[in-house]
């Protein structure tokens, strides 16, 4: 049983690992998120979908405490991640793993050294044990045999799997994925999708997947949030999403070029731009 502590009363049991309450965020005065409410239940794989530039990656950075909301609260494991001391934030981050869009592997280290990095930084384990753990993590993503390769020698899909092995090196309670399927071939997409589900269940973790890939993510996630215009416009289980008649969800899931999200970027009348107004 998990509890959320509050000053106003006794501990309240919380089934949510991450909670967003009325979160607002702006870049240089341009609003990105407006009054976002989200709940990420423990043990679940949750997808955040939406068009480019709708603030999906911003949500991950808010969870990791790399960005601070203008308003509202982000709670992780019942506690805030903003306005807390540096050491406390880093203690929370030790329980998180993040897979970046292109892996963000350290280019001067081998796959083995990349996965060993968090273990060496945060534990005093002997080198023999670190070796065993790294090989176990690499085996979990099917790349034990590639442990000696450097990132430049790995394909895009392999690099992301090594990055995933690194993200789970410390057995995190929360794993975040930033566009894990981008730029991968269909086989690699399937492999990464299966890994997300399998590792989440094996580690008893909670996963947040930011993605555009509707078909692959609907196969593996438990719940979906749709983000548009800085707000949550729809949410539900994969089946509810597939059956949804909501115009935005329908357009997104079926990849239609026009709908609530317009094909054309906002512009003055065409004739005016072509100088035909006076003729």
């Amino acid at each position: 049983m998990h509890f959320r502590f509050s000053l106003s009363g006794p501990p309240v049991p919380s089934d949510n690992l991450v909670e967003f309450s009325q979160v607002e965020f702006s870049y240089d005065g341009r609003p990105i998120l407006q009054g976002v409410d989200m709940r990420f239940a423990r043990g679940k794989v949750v997808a955040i979908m939406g068009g480019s530039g709708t603030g999906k990656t911003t949500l991950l950075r808010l969870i990791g405490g790399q960005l601070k909301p203008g308003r509202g609260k982000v709670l992780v494991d019942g506690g805030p991640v903003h306005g807390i001391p540096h050491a406390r934030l880093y203690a929370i981050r030790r329980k998180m793993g993040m897979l970046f869009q292109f892996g963000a592997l350290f280019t001067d280290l081998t796959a083995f050294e990349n996965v060993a990095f968090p273990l060496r930084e945060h534990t005093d384990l002997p080198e023999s044990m670190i070796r065993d753990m790294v090989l176990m993590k690499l085996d979990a993503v099917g790349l034990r045999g590639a442990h000696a390769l450097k990132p430049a020698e790995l394909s895009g899909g392999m690099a992301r799997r090594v990055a995933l092995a690194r993200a789970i090196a410390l057995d995190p309670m929360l794993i975040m994925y930033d566009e894990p399927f981008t730029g991968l071939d269909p086989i690699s997409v399937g492999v990464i999708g299966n890994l997300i589900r399998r590792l989440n269940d094996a580690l008893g973790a909670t996963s947040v997947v930011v993605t555009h890939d509707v078909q692959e993510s609907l196969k593996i996630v438990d719940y979906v949030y749709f983000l548009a215009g800085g707000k949550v416009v729809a949410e539900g289980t994969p089946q509810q999403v597939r059956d949804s008649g909501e115009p935005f969800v329908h357009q997104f899931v079926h990849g239609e070029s026009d709908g609530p999200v317009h094909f054309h970027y906002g512009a003055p009348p065409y004739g005016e731009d072509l100088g035909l107004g006076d003729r």
Partner: protein
Amino acid sequence: MINALANGIRLIGHRTIEAVWRLGAATRFMGLVLARSAMAFRRFQLTLDEIHFAGVLSLIIIIVSGLFVGLVLGLQGYETLKRYGSAEAVGTLVALALVRELGPVVAALLFASRAGSAMTAEIGIMKSTEQLSAMEMMAVDPFARVISPMFWGGFISMPLLAAIFSVMGIFGGYLITVVIIGVDSGAFWSQMQASVDLRDDILNGVIKSVVFGAAVTAIALFEGYDAPPTAEGVSRAVTRTVVTSALAVLALDFVLTAFMFTGV
């Protein structure tokens, strides 16, 4: 006309605000580098790796440049001093010029173009490929783990490189004047020994090289960290590192020389 004037004033204002903002950001950056320096000394291997990167890998360019500067100094000095009948004083001229000025300044300029530009590129690329963000998300502070050791690596390397540059320069001066031209070897060394003061010349030269090392390394790291995360952003940052470092070294040299040698 009024519009052009207003635009001009607006541009000046914008540039001023930007400059003040960057100065503030650089100050905050250096504050963080110094505040997170404990790991650079606790895990000294990290700093040693950076000394290897910034110092050892710069040795070739420093040695070769120092030798050539010494050769030229010896040749020019001999030709000038010969007119006044004091060719034996060429050792003094070579040593003082190198230890007081050319050693620290030229070594710093070379250091900026070899090690400084590489530091900027490394940090800039680590930022643009999200390696620094990844480190943060792994609860590893990039300032403590990467940037501070780099700063101290550069800080320690620079005086050593300046010293090696000066030694090679003196050796070059000796080669050209004593071995090739035939100036008396005893006079060359004894006049140098009598004229070069440990505190006034050598120590002041070391102080200069320490200041230059701190300035160049700080500029290189800040430019890399502040670079826009694009290929063009990183390339511009590298250019800015070399240009800003060169100007900073020359300006600082003037200020330090004014205080050290002219009693301002």
